[in-house]
C-alpha cells in the first residue's frame, strides 16, 4: 500500500481511498462421498478510488474513478493507471460530498467469531468430515457438495487518515441432496457462516436429506387458488430484504424509494405483527471504513434509520452509517405447529424465490411445498408458482416463535402470509 500511496502523491492525487484484500482459501468439491478436486487460492487485490474536485459555473463537484492495482504491476504501470483514473474522474460530475470522518484502529479487528486457531484447510477438512458422516442411506443421500473455507484480511486507508483492518473468516458452500425413490429428485441448499459452525452445517445437511425424501413423495402441484403461505429461513430473509433495500440511501437519494424516517412504512395493520427490524453488522466497518454497529431499522413498522455510504448520506443531509447486509427481527407469536392450520401451504423450497424491492412483488416456482390437510397431515407437493405483493400483505404477517440464524439474518424461522395467489394444477 505504501508504494501506491507514494504514487498517488507523485501523481498529484490528494484525495483517495485504498482497499486491500488478501484471501487464502481452501475449496473441496465432492461427488457423492468422493473428492472431485481440492483447490487452494491465495490472492491479493487493491481497489483504488481516486477523487478529483472541480468547479463549473460556481458549482462544486467531486468526481471519482475506481481502478484495481494487482500484484506484479510495476511502479510505472501503477502511476499510469492512477493518472488515467484521475483524468477519468474529471468527467464524473457528481455534486461535492465529504468523505467520512477518519477512523483508525491500531489492532486488526475481527468479523464475527471466526475460525479461531483453525486454518482454512482444517475447517474445510472438518466440514468435509461432517459431509461424509451424514445420515443419508442408499435411497436419500448427498449427491454432491462444495465447501469453501476462507480467511480474508481487509485493510482500508484513505487520504483523510482512515486506517482500519479486519479479518473475516467464512465457511460457505452448497450441497445437493438426492432421493432416488419413489421419484428420483433433488434439493439444493446453500450455507454460509462466519465461524466454523459445524453443528449448523450438520443440521442443514440433515434437513436437506429430510426434505428431499418429502420431495420424492410429492406427486402433484397445488391446485390453483389463494393460500395462507408459510415461508421459512432464507426465503423469509428474502422478503425482509424489501425493507433493507427500500430504506437504503442508494434508493432514497435517487427517489426510487420515497421513504423518510418516521414513516409508517409497514402501512395499515390487518391482523399481523408490527415489524421491529435491526441492522446488524456483518463486518467491523463498512467499505469506507465507517464503524458498523447494530442500528434500529424499523420500530413498530416505522422507519428509524436510512443507511448507506457517505456520498448519498451527504446529499440527503443525514449521518453516514455504512452499508448493511444483515438483519435481525424481533417478532414471533405463533409456534410453527400453530401456523400449520388446515389449508396452509408451507413453501419449503423454491427453484429461486425473489422479492422485488422496486415493485413489492415476490414470486417463485415451488420445488417442495407441504399442504396441511383437514386431518392435520401434511401432503408434499411440487410445481406451480407463488406470486404475491408484499405491499398488500405486510400488515398481515405473523412470525414464528422458533428462531433461525445465518450470516445474513437472525430472527423467527417462519412467517405466515395469508391469501397469496398460487398458480398450480
Amino acid at each position, binding site marked *: 500500500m505504501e508504494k501506491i500511496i507514494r504514487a498517488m502523491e507523485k501523481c498529484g492525487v490528494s484525495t483517495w481511498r485504498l482497499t486491500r484484500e488478501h484471501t487464502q482459501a481452501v475449496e473441496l468439491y465432492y461427488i457423492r462421498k468422493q473428492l472431485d*478436486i481440492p483447490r487452494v487460492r491465495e490472492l491479493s487485490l487493491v481497489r483504488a478510488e481516486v477523487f478529483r474536485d472541480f468547479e463549473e459555473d460556481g458549482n462544486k463537484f467531486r468526481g*471519482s474513478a475506481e481502478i484495481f492495482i494487482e500484484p506484479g504491476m510495476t511502479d510505472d504501470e501503477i502511476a499510469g493507471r492512477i493518472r488515467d483514473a484521475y483524468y477519468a474522474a*474529471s468527467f464524473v460530475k457528481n455534486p461535492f460530498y465529504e468523505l467520512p470522518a477518519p477512523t483508525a484502529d491500531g489492532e486488526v479487528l475481527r468479523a464475527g467469531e471466526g475460525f479461531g486457531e483453525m486454518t482454512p484447510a482444517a475447517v474445510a*477438512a472438518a466440514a468435509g468430515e461432517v459431509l461424509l458422516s451424514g445420515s443419508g442411506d442408499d435411497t436419500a443421500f448427498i449427491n*454432491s457438495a462444495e465447501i469453501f473455507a476462507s480467511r480474508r484480511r481487509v485493510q482500508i486507508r484513505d487520504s483523510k487518515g482512515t486506517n482500519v483492518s479486519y479479518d473475516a473468516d467464512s465457511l460457505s458452500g452448497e450441497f445437493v441432496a438426492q432421493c432416488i425413490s419413489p421419484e*428420483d429428485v433433488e434439493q439444493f441448499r446453500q450455507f454460509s457462516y462466519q465461524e466454523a459452525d459445524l453443528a449448523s452445517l450438520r443440521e442443514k445437511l440433515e434437513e436437506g436429506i429430510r426434505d428431499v425424501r418429502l420431495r420424492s413423495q410429492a406427486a402433484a402441484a397445488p391446485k390453483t387458488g389463494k393460500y395462507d403461505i408459510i415461508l421459512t429461513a432464507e426465503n423469509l430473509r428474502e422478503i425482509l430484504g424489501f425493507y433493507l433495500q427500500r430504506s437504503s440511501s442508494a434508493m432514497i*437519494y*435517487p427517489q426510487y424509494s420515497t421513504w423518510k424516517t418516521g414513516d409508517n412504512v409497514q402501512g395499515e395493520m390487518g391482523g399481523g405483527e408490527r415489524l421491529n427490524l435491526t441492522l446488524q453488522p456483518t463486518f467491523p466497518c463498512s467499505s469506507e471504513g465507517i464503524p458498523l454497529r447494530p442500528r434500529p431499522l424499523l420500530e413498530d413498522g416505522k422507519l428509524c434509520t436510512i443507511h448507506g455510504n457517505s456520498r448519498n448520506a451527504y446529499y440527503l443531509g443525514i449521518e453516514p452509517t455504512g452499508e448493511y447486509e444483515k438483519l435481525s427481527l424481533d417478532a414471533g407469536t405463533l409456534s410453527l405447529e400453530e401456523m400449520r392450520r388446515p389449508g396452509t401451504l408451507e413453501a419449503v423450497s423454491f427453484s429461486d424465490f425473489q422479492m422485488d424491492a422496486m*415493485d413489492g412483488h415476490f414470486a417463485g416456482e415451488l420445488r417442495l411445498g407441504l399442504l396441511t390437510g383437514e386431518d392435520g397431515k401434511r401432503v408434499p407437493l411440487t410445481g406451480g408458482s407463488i406470486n404475491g405483493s408484499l405491499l398488500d400483505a405486510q400488515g398481515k404477517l405473523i412470525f414464528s416463535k422458533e428462531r433461525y440464524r445465518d450470516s445474513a439474518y437472525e430472527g423467527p424461522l417462519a412467517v405466515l402470509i395469508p391469501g397469496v395467489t398460487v398458480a398450480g394444477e
Partner: protein
Amino acid sequence: MASSVESSSFLAQQKTALRALLDALLERYPYACVLASDVEAKNYSVSRSGIRIAESRMFGRRGFTARVYYGKGLLEYSGDRLSGEDIPGILLYFEKTLQEAADISDQYPTPVPEDPPEVFSKATTFETDPRALGDGEITARLTSVREDMLSSQESLLECMVRYQYQVYHKIFLSKNRDLEQNVMYCDAAVICLARRGEQVKDGYYSSSLLGGAELLDDLPRCADESFAAVQAALIAEPLSPGEYDCICTPAVTGIIVHEAFGHGVEMDMFVKDRALAKSCMGTQIASPLVTMKDGAATSYEDVATYFFDDEGNSASDTVIIDKGILVSGICDGVSASRLGTKPTGNGRRESVDHKAYTRMTNTFFTEGESTPEEMIRSVEDGLLLDCPTSGMEDPKNWGIQCMVSFGREIKHGELTGKVYGPLVLTGYVPDLLRSISMVSDKVEHFGAGACGKGWKEWVKVSDGGPYIRARIRLG
C-alpha cells in the same frame, strides 16, 4: 476498418516464469497445465445516483491457475504472484496443503487428462477501441441518451444508461499446448423507471457484441425499447393463472433456451447424475421445428465467443437438439474424460481463481420459416410474452422457472393493448418444447447478462433465438 485485439505485454513478460512453473510441476506429476490471464474491464453508468466510471474484476482478473494430475485425481492452485522465487512456495502448496486435502477421502476416478498438441495465437476484432475513444466521450454519449429520453418523456422517474467493455488475454500452457487468445466484448443497457403508486416499474433493454465501442451507436434503440417496456409494465394487470397460447419474443425464447434447457445439457451434471437429459439422448425432446445450438465458435458471435476454453480445449459449435431430437450435451474436459467422450470447449471459469465447470457460451434456437406477424395472427386467445427478468435451472427434473415482466394480450390474431404481468412461467420443459408450433425466420441474441451455476460462478453468455409459439403455464 476492423482491428485485432493486441496481446498482453504483462503475459508476455510472465511467460518465462509460467513455463518454469509448468516445467517444475511436470518434473513431479504426469500431467500439468497453467492458465494465465490479464484483463482490462471498465463499467460506465449514468443515472440519478450520478456518474460512475469503475474498473471491474467480475469476469476476470490478472492471475493464474496451475492444475496437476497426481496419479489419482486433480489438484489446483490459483494465485497472482509468479516469479522464480515464488515457485518453491507454490510447489509446497501442491505437495502439502493440496495433497493433505486430497488424502482425507477417496478421489472420484479421473483419467489422466488428454493433451493433444496445439499451438496458436488468435484474436477477435473491433471497429472502435473504447480505450482510445476515452472516458470523456463514452460518458458524454451515455449522458446524451439519458437526457434525450428524460426530456422527451417527462413521466419517467429515471433513465439509467450503462456500458461496459472487457478486453481479456489468456495463455494456456501444457506439455504439448501453447495457446494464446485476445478477446474484446461490450454490452450496454438502458433501464427506464416509472412510478405507479408505491410501486416502481422498470423497462429494460440491452445490446451486446463481440467488438468495441461501436456498440454505443445502438444505445438510442435500447432507450426506445426500454421506454416501450416500462409503458407496458405500468399498465400491466394481474393474470388469472393457467395455460395460455403464447408467442415468445427472442429475448424470452433466449431465457427458455438457456435456463429451462441449456443448463440441463451441461455434462458435468451427467457425471453427478443430476441431469435428466443424460437418459434422453437420441429421443424426441422437442417439436421437430426446434434446433438448438451452443458454441464459443458458433456463427452467432457474441460475448461468449472465444478460441479455447479455460482448460485449453478448442471452442466448438455444438448442435444440441436437431429437429427436436436431443443429440448432444456440452462438456468440459474433466467431465469428458470421466464420461469417455470428447470435450466441446465449454470448460469455463468465472475467473482464473475459480474452478472450471461445464458452462454455456452462445446458446440459441435456430430460425424457422414464419414471420412474427403471422405468428400473432395465428393466436385466437393468448399472450405475447416479453422482457424476461430472470430464470432458474432444474436439470434433474426439468421444472421451468422463468420470470417475465409482462405479456401483451392477443385476441383473434391481434394485440388488444391490454397487458398482464409480472408473470412466472412454470411447467415441465419437454411439454413446453414439444408444444412449439411456430418458429420465426430471424434470430436475435442477447449478451448483456451473466450466467450463474446455481447462485455463483458468473460467466458471460449470450442467449436468444427466434420468436416461438408455445403452450405455457403462467402464474
